[in-house]
């Protein structure tokens, strides 16, 4: 069972990553009998139950249309399950009022396959965006942006525009924007889908570093090389059902 706790005023605390979790927190994410049926009748998730402890690194695998994206979208309340309960950081996010959703998302970092950067803004402005929209003070924004860009190895390109960067660099900017507010959970949907194997490895390396600071990472992927190489927990979804949930697993869902 998830236990509710608060990280307090993270904005004004030194940015030291998600940090160590209190010993009494047993699960960061918990799904209980979650089913999602879209208005067109497609059953994207079918009675899914699972628990992901704080600080875990999880690969979500499965064929296209298996329900991976729906699963992730439910975690940041972009979709609401038709049935079941979803608890994130101790909060029942299915019953959460619409007005609280932005505050839930401030504790989540989200990275999607298409890079979703603002082309008219510089790298630094793109990363700062994640802090600006939550009303952080200018000095806090400057310090955190610098630190996060150093973390992803792009501080020297802070004044460049997204179009001047390679695909891997653009994705690193997205990751920087996702982690700049020091999230509890990093949710990534096919983040290496458009990248070559070498760059993909670099991106995952970055996720491992973020995970090592205490952030729970959930990564939906089709990249079996990465999954087999890292041997982290693997959850396989097929037709909306969990068919495998294996610590130190490999890429397999047949």
């Amino acid at each position, binding site marked *: 069972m998830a236990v509710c706790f608060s990280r307090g005023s993270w904005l004004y605390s030194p940015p030291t990553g998600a940090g160590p979790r209190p010993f009494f927190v047993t699960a960061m994410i918990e799904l209980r009998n979650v089913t999602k049926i879209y208005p067109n009748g497609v059953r994207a998730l079918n009675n899914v139950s699972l628990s992901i402890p704080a600080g875990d690194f999880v690969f979500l695998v499965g064929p296209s249309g298996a329900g991976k994206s729906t699963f992730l979208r439910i975690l940041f309340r*972009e979709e609401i399950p038709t049935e079941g309960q979803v608890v994130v950081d101790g909060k029942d996010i299915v019953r959460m009022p619409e007005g609280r959703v*932005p505050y839930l*998302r*401030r504790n989540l970092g989200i990275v999607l396959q298409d890079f979703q950067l603002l082309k008219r803004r510089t790298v630094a402005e793109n990363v700062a*965006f994640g802090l600006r*929209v*939550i*009303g952080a003070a200018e000095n806090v924004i400057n310090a955190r942006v610098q630190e996060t860009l150093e973390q992803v190895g792009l501080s020297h390109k802070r004044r460049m525009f997204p179009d001047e960067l390679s695909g891997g660099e653009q994705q690193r900017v997205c990751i920087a*924007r996702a982690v700049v*507010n020091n999230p509890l959970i990093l949710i990534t949907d096919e983040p290496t889908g458009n990248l070559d194997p070498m760059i993909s490895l670099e991106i995952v390396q970055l996720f491992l570093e973020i995970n090592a600071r205490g952030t729970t990472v959930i990564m939906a992927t089709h990249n079996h090389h990465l999954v087999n190489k890292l041997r982290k927990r693997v959850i396989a979804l097929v037709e909306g059902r969990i068919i495998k949930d294996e610590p130190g697993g490999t890429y397999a869902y047949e």
Partner: protein
Amino acid sequence: MGFDNLVFFASEALTNLRRAGVMTFVTVSTIAVALLLMGTFLLASMNMESFLARLQEEAMVTAFLVPGTASDRVSALKMQITAFDEVTEVTVVTPEAAARELFTDPADQKLLQVGLGEGTNPLPYTIRMKVRSSHDLQALVDKLKALPQVESVSYGEEAFRQFQGLSHLLWIGSLLVIVLLGLASLFIVYNTVRLTLFMRREEVIIMRLVGATNWFIRWPFVIEGFLHGLLGAAVAVVVLAVGTPFIMARLAALVPFFAFDPGAVALVKLSVKLCLMGVVLGVSGSLLCLRDLNAFGREM
């Protein structure tokens, strides 16, 4: 809203206005034309009001006394009427003077004497007065009618009623024009904001992803709508300020009794009204468009 946020919203709104150059121009022009027309109608109504007020103020109220009222009673009545607050000048017209006024031609006078006989005059005593303010007219007429010696009261009510009817018609017309133009401009502002929102949908999606509240997303658009309205109103006010004296001079040459100078205070009041209308139009157009931001997440 903190100062940093305010600066961010304002700079976002200004950047937006600049980027959406043609659309900004179209919206501001539409609001300007609508407000200009509204302003013109309001001015015409003000003109009519002022004309009616002058008509009432300059109208001479005449009280016809009961025939055969003794002259000492007439003097007492004159004193009584002079004491009314609504009245400025009071004069008594004797039946003889009235007859002289009525039959100015000596031939007519002779004919009268022949017809009615020497020394007979059917005309009653009349008391004429000027009303202090057009607002007091009705009260004065009522007071006069209540006096037992007064048989009837005349103040050119037929012409006045006709003008008043015309004035009402103009007000209704102005109101209709204001409502229709308001709706048309609202529709255009709404569509412009929709287009800018569409142009910036990626930004809105990202804002929602990183935890921006709906109001944080709305503010730059609301400021943009506010600026659209204010700029449009400013253009309309400038055109009206330059155009009004010119049109009034032309009108004075054509219909001298109808033209008027609204005065600086009335023009300032009108300008403030137009600016308020512009801002309300701009902001409500934006808000109308930004009702449901949650739909943006479906595009992710």
